Each structure stands twice: as structure tokens, then as C-alpha cells.
């Protein structure tokens, strides 16, 4: 029986970066966002684009297109597209491929002109949403994730004020990140009084819509020593998918995919859910991160929101969460999952300036695809822990 623990620490993140700019970029195509991010992340690693022989991406563009546009002929490609966490899941796939020598330098790339729609082909709906959701007015993530949220409120008594605190905590981090789109201070009252979109969400409960690219470069630990920056060890990876249509989710208040992904990643890394000193969670909506903490076993069921109180997840708090300002305040191009990886690597390298969390050694990255449908979890560290 193969032991996934053998993969732990065998691969490192050696380069991370965004596209040249992120935000509202009507002058840049989606492909440009990819290429800028790849060029920047490869440079961050002290490598050249010609060193890249594994191309990983998700979304509209295939890894074949990225290889062509980069002018390389990759010997390993992966285009797994299961929602915004695909890039997190692809870290696990890259670990396996690199460990076994199927490629030597892997790049995972995201580029999305989510706000401006430049170089984007129209989305195609499936027969399932077209038949069973669209005729009732469902369209887009807020009309679905709100269901998860009202059910959680019903079962656990979670309040609108508590969800709002997630937005407030995340904004406090964004105020310290010059790349964040929204940097003005907000209060719980501001969230509660912002424009109602679809109850239980006001506009400040919902992520931004931006144009952005991001890329992550990985290589084997023995090769990572020659790269420009301090390596970030991939100690654990996990992935799972539970459903696509929300009616098929067994328990709306708990993500089975997230539980499974977390369990796998923690076991591979030899850590427990309580061991982390920094956490990055996919925050498309304010209710997402607390439910992820509950599904991962970091928080008890119904108690995830307490982690976002002042003095806990906030700057200076005991367990910093979403230190880049998150999808809520930093950037959210559509498939956000590359950005929590980038931020975790930067925190572990200690290069975050005013928003640097103290003594970060073990970082948890967890993302969702769809409506908690798919999940990817990473355990990252600046030491091997062995």
C-alpha cells in the first residue's frame, strides 16, 4: 500500500506572484494575466520560463494553450477544473508528478478577466442548472451560497452580525496590503447597512469581482535549494468533491468534501487541525470561512464564527486568518484559489511587511470549488518538521 506520507516535504513552493497589476484591468486579456503571473512567479523563484516543464491551470484556458503561449513544450499538463480551489488541488497533483520525476519545474497558473471580460468566451450552462435552477431565478453563486448560510443560521443560531465580523476582520488585513482593492475601514454596522443583494447577503458579505492573475512555481526539495528564495515545504495535500448541484449536498451546514480534504492533508503532514499559526480560507462569502473551519475540525460545529472576533483572526490576533485581505477585500477574479497559496508562501517567507503575522511556521490553506462542492487543503511550512 502506497504511503502518502512519503510525499510530505518532497516538494517545495519556490516562486509566487500576481500579474503585474490586479483590480480593474480593461486593457488586459485573460491570457495576458496568466502570462504576466507566470513570468513574475518564475522570476521570483530565480528560474527561467524555459525551465518550466509542467503546466497546471484551471478555467477557460487549457494547459496546452499556456504552453504554446509561453513557447514551451511541457512534458506534464493538468487542467483539472472543479471550481475555484482547482489550483490548490493541483498543488497536490504537482507534488505527485514532481516527486516521481514526471516533471522538474511545475507552474500552476490562474488568469481571469472576471470584471472586464477581456479575451473571455461566454460561459456555457449545463442542462442541470438550465432545467432545475434557472427557471426559479437562480443565477450565480450568491443565489446558492445563501442557502447554505440561512440553513446554518437556522441550525446553529448564527447571526448576521457574526457573518459581518468576518468581513470586518478581513478588511483590517486588507488595509495593510497595498495590493488590496478595498482598503477603507468598515464596521459590523457598515456591513449590515450595505446594499441588500440576496438575503442573507448584503454587498459587503460578497467577494469582489476583479481582473487578476496569479502563479505558483514548485520543484522537488533537492532542486529547491538552488532557487532564489527560502523554500516553502508542501507538507500535506488533500482534495475531494462531494456534489455540484446544491440540492445534492448531504448537510448544507457542513462540507463533507472539506472534511475529507483536510483529513488527508493533516494525516500526510502529521499535524492536527489545532496546530496552525496562520490560516488562509477561500472567502467568496462571509459565511464560507467559518463553515470551512467547522468542516476541517479547527472549530466545533456552529462555532467557526467565533474565530473572527477581534483579537483572534484580526491583525495582532492569536490566529491570523486571510491576511491578504481575502476575496472579500483584496481581489477575487472568479477562481480565487491561487491567491491564498501565494499569501501563505509569502507569510512563511516573512516578506509581508506591515501585515506580516509573527512567527508563522505552519500555514493552512483551504479552498472550495462551487458551493463547498469541491475542496482542496494544503499544509505548508518553512521547515520540514522532522
Amino acid at each position, binding site marked *: 500500500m502506497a504511503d502518502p506520507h512519503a510525499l510530505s516535504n518532497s516538494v517545495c513552493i519556490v516562486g509566487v506572484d500576481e500579474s503585474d497589476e490586479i483590480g480593474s484591468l480593461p486593457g488586459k486579456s485573460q491570457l495576458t494575466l496568466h502570462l504576466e503571473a507566470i513570468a513574475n512567479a518564475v522570476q521570483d523563484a530565480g528560474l527561467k520560463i524555459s525551465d518550466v516543464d509542467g503546466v497546471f491551470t484551471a478555467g477557460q484556458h487549457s494547459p496546452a494553450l499556456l504552453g504554446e503561449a509561453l513557447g514551451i513544450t511541457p512534458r506534464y499538463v493538468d487542467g483539472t477544473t472543479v471550481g475555484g480551489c482547482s489550483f490548490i488541488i493541483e498543488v497536490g497533483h504537482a507534488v505527485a508528478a514532481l516527486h516521481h520525476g514526471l516533471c522538474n519545474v511545475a507552474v500552476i497558473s490562474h488568469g481571469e478577466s472576471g470584471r472586464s471580460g477581456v479575451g473571455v468566451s461566454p460561459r456555457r450552462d449545463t442542462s442541470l442548472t438550465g*432545467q432545475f435552477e434557472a*427557471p426559479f*431565478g*437562480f443565477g450565480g453563486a450568491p443565489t446558492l451560497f445563501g*442557502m447554505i448560510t440561512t440553513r446554518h443560521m*437556522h441550525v446553529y443560531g448564527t447571526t448576521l452580525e457574526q457573518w459581518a465580523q468576518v468581513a470586518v476582520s478581513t478588511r483590517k488585513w486588507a488595509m495593510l496590503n497595498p495590493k488590496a482593492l478595498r482598503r477603507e475601514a468598515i464596521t459590523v454596522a457598515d456591513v449590515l447597512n450595505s446594499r441588500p443583494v440576496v*438575503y*442573507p447577503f448584503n454587498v459587503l458579505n460578497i467577494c469582489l469581482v476583479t481582473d487578476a492573475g496569479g502563479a505558483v512555481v514548485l520543484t522537488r526539495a533537492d532542486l529547491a535549494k538552488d532557487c532564489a528564495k527560502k523554500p516553502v515545504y508542501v507538507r500535506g495535500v488533500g482534495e475531494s468533491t462531494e456534489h455540484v448541484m446544491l*440540492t445534492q449536498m448531504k448537510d*448544507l451546514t457542513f462540507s463533507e468534501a472539506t472534511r475529507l480534504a483536510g483529513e488527508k492533508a493533516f494525516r500526510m503532514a502529521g499535524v492536527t487541525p489545532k496546530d496552525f499559526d496562520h490560516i488562509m480560507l477561500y472567502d467568496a462569502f462571509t459565511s464560507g470561512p467559518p463553515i470551512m473551519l467547522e468542516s476541517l475540525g479547527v472549530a466545533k460545529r456552529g462555532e467557526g464564527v467565533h474565530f473572527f472576533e477581534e483579537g483572534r483572526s484580526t491583525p495582532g490576533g492569536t490566529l491570523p486568518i486571510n491576511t491578504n485581505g481575502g476575496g472579500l477585500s483584496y481581489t477575487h477574479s472568479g477562481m480565487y484559489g491561487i491567491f491564498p497559496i501565494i499569501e501563505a508562501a509569502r507569510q512563511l517567507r516573512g516578506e509581508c511587511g506591515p501585515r506580516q503575522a509573527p512567527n508563522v511556521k505552519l500555514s493552512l490553506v483551504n479552498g472550495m470549488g462551487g458551493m463547498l462542492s469541491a475542496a482542496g487543503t494544503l499544509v505548508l511550512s518553512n521547515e520540514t518538521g522532522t
Partner: protein
Amino acid sequence: MELDRPLPSPITPEAKPFWDGLREGKLLLPKCKACSHVFFYPRVLCPRCHARDLTWIQASGKGKLHAFEIAYQAFTKAWTVKPPYVLAMVELAEGPRLMTNLVNVEPDPKAIKCDMPVQVVFSKLTEEVTLPLFEPAR
């Protein structure tokens, strides 16, 4: 009359009995003959035991509001129903859940509670298409 919402599209062959039943005022659900599991959405095998011998049953039309949202704007181009309106996930008495709208109710979070009993209302859109909407049970 001008339609205020998108028609179900594309209707797939495996779901045709569901849409045909609605036209006759019946809410039909697929049922596995091997393990008696009633499920939704329609598909060609049972998601519980993976048998392929399936039949259709007529649902009671009764259920509970599993979760809801109150929409203050339209989310698709074809949608012109005046907001606010209620988006709903209903858990049918037979077990499966479906997405729908809760109608004949005040669109106010104080008036709507998860797990409140609801019943089906057949809403005829065209000669071909009738939608299963739900209202608070009387």
C-alpha cells in the same frame, strides 16, 4: 403574455417524464426499484445502489422549506419578476430536495422559517411548461 423567467432548457430525455407530469398537475419523482430510493434530479441510475431499474412515483406535493433566500434584484437577463422574491430549497416528504420559489408569502425573513411546512403550487408558464412552485402549507 410575456414570460417573466427563463424556461427550463435544455430539457433532457431522462427528465422528460418529470416535465410531462407537471403539465398534468403531477409532481413525479424517479424511484429505484431495487432499493426503493426516491431521488431527484432524474438520472439513469440510482445514486444510492447504482441499479438501473427505475420507475416514477407521484409525490404528495408536501414538504418542508429546507433553506431560503430573499432576492432583491434579478440574477439573470431573462428574469423580470419584480423583486423581492423568495428563492427556496424544499425537502419533499418523499426525501429529495429541489430548488424552487416560495410564493404567497411575505418576502421578509421574519415571515419565513427553515423547516416550515410547504405545499406545491403548479404554475403554468406555457402550453409545454408548468413549474412546481411552493407556498406555506395550509
